């Protein structure tokens, strides 16, 4: 960011590959811009900053809200948006990732939004494609736009990020959302707590500048924000935890546990939720605390801001 552009410069293009490498000023800047897009994100309507640009959503992993919000964000800004998923692409027929990149180069895509189940895929593609790459989730590595969405949601409700106590709870080991949020929130001065069963805590997490808990009640005490992470069903079959009911008993967010947090604590979840596994339905739907719907709404505004900033840079370099 020292050179003034947004995101990571590789070759001649800028990319958003992760929160790592962004500076606090850049994070604040993208959140400020996203604020200005909130009403436009709601209503739709004409903005043409991306007119004539092509955004390709390349989703090797299934996604509903991230994919849809990138589609909406692109369209609201006037871009042509194409979405590809593996079942409909040559990738499913065994084409290699880099052959796909070569194909994309021939199509003159401006922005590539990519999700993949392998850490580092967005960075690998950024080396090989001519487009600006946005990481929409790569394995357990990063999901930067989700962290920006969460930050905007918190900032709008609390007016700040600095000094807030944020408890991130659940399957931290496999969570790219947790890693991006830890990077962003610690950078912006929040106090971050991580809570998971010991089998779902990454080694070395205590060195991320966070407090680590294995007792959810202790982690929630006086928290300003509670972020619950999704526990994927397949993690249970690999025996990281014994059963869903045991997980819910000790690590699920129930009203009695939430009562330990600050009275006005925000409850967040990146979705999709497993009701009755990591979160009780009554908590998820409790509008006094839950901002889960608002997270989805902020998703479009944040992605508009990210697309806008990266395309501005494309224009500058054109």
């Amino acid at each position, binding site marked *: 960011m020292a050179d003034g552009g947004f995101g990571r410069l590789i070759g001649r293009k800028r990319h958003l590959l992760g929160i*790592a490498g962004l500076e606090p000023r850049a994070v604040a800047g993208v959140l400020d811009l996203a604020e200005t897009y909130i009403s436009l994100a709601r209503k739709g309507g004409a903005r043409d900053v991306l007119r004539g640009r092509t955004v390709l959503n390349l989703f090797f992993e299934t996604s509903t809200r991230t994919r849809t919000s990138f589609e909406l964000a692109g369209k609201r800004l006037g871009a042509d948006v194409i979405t590809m998923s593996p079942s409909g692409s040559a990738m499913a027929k065994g084409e*290699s*990732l*880099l052959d796909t990149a070569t194909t994309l180069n021939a199509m003159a895509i401006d922005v590539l939004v990519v999700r*993949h189940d*392998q*850490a*580092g*895929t967005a*960075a*690998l593609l950024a080396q090989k494609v001519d487009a600006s790459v946005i990481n929409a989730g*790569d*394995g*357990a*590595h*990063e999901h930067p736009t989700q962290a920006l969405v969460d930050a905007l949601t918190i900032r709008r409700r609390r007016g700040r990020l600095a000094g807030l106590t944020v408890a991130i709870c659940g399957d931290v080991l496999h969570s*790219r959302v947790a*890693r991006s949020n830890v990077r962003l929130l610690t950078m912006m001065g929040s106090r971050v707590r991580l809570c998971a069963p010991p089998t779902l805590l*990454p*080694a*070395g*997490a205590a*060195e*991320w500048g966070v407090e680590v808990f294995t007792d959810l009640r202790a982690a929630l005490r006086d928290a300003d924000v509670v972020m619950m992470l999704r526990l994927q069903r397949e993690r249970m079959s690999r025996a990281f935890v014994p059963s869903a009911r045991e997980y819910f008993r000790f690590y699920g967010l129930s009203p009695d546990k939430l009562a330990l947090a600050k009275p006005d604590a925000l409850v967040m979840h990146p979705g999709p939720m497993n009701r009755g596994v990591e979160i009780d339905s009554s908590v998820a739907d409790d509008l006094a605390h839950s901002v889960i719907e608002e997270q989805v709404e902020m998703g479009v505004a944040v992605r508009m801001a990210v697309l806008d900033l990266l395309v501005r840079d494309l224009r500058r370099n054109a």
Partner: protein
Amino acid sequence: MKTLFRDVRLLDPATGRDGPGSLLVVDGRIAALDPADPPSDAAVIEGAGLCLCPGLVDLRVGLREPGEEHKESLATLAARAAAGGVTTLVALPDTAPPLDQPALVEFVSRRAASFGSLTVLPMGAATKGCAGRELAEMGLLREAGAVAFSDGRRAIAEARTMRLALAYAAAFGAMVVQHPEEPSLVAGAVATEGLFASSLGLPAAPAAAEAILVARDIRLAELTGGHVHFSPVSTGEALTLIRDAKARGVRVTCDTAPPYFDLNETAIGEWRTYARLSPPLRSEADRLAVLAALADGTIDAIGSDHQPQDTDAKRLPFALAEPGGVGVETLLAVTLSTVHNGHLGLLDAIALLTSRPAALLGLEAGRLVPGAPADLCLFDLDRGWQIRADDLIGPSRNTPFDGRAVQGRVVGTWKAGVRVFG
């Protein structure tokens, strides 16, 4: 045919010799050191003070022929070995098909010998198909030329199978070479567990997976009286176990490979798949422990752990890339960094590449004595150069040392008195 190496610095770790001298080769064998009256018809190599040591004996090399010749043929391997000063190498049996048949063992050594520059000593499969279940025909494989038994890059997982392999191989005077990673702990992992891997979001396994298997197999070696050799060892904890077991008289030996004393996990950087190795690169503390174990003699040899992979196997997301790095050409230069950095004496470093691995297998190579084969490596101890993947002999150029500045370069290689490089 006679060749006289004049004005060289003779390095022979077996006898402790390090000093100026000359060496006479007659008919492929070393005839004399410092001959008083060298024959006038000998071809003369003027050493100008360069180092002359035994041709290197590389204890750990992965073959791609038979089965994956598009990654590396035996002909290419022979060319690379000559460029690296390596005249004898010990090959892992995990080819496709694996070396679990006497005819395959003979094929590999004969085909390699046909190039005239390299002796390839194959290990035989310890179990059929290197699958870890039933013992391979160790006796017949030994008669066909197998120098040791191993399942290659795959650990022999079951304690019972390992016990049987150690006991049975001992009857044929051969060691069992074990890949030291407890398989169930490392399944799916591509990095060493810790802050670095967690931040990249890479599936990782604890470094202790090595010590856990080493502890078990040391105990099995004691139980059976067999000889277990761990290859390659990369953690301080496992080296402590090996050091203690050696002191107790257990028949245990080990080697390591240059990445484990020259690099640590941060060489992965941002997804550099050339640094994806098996075992994975370790912490800085483990790297220093490997250096200490080289210096105190706990580690018996340095093998290159040469594992060619082509770009199709490496240009992938990190965890999908095949593990392994090429290393035969850079074995000497990276090893000499331990000398230039003051961790090892020159003779001790050369011993780890010549006399000590040769002694492990009872080879006549690896020494500068009259009667020994004239397998020789002439090198410039001080010449600086940069390892660049693009400069290596292809098709597989997957070096984890790409960009590394090193000091020490092979100038010439002789096999049985014939110059094969330089």
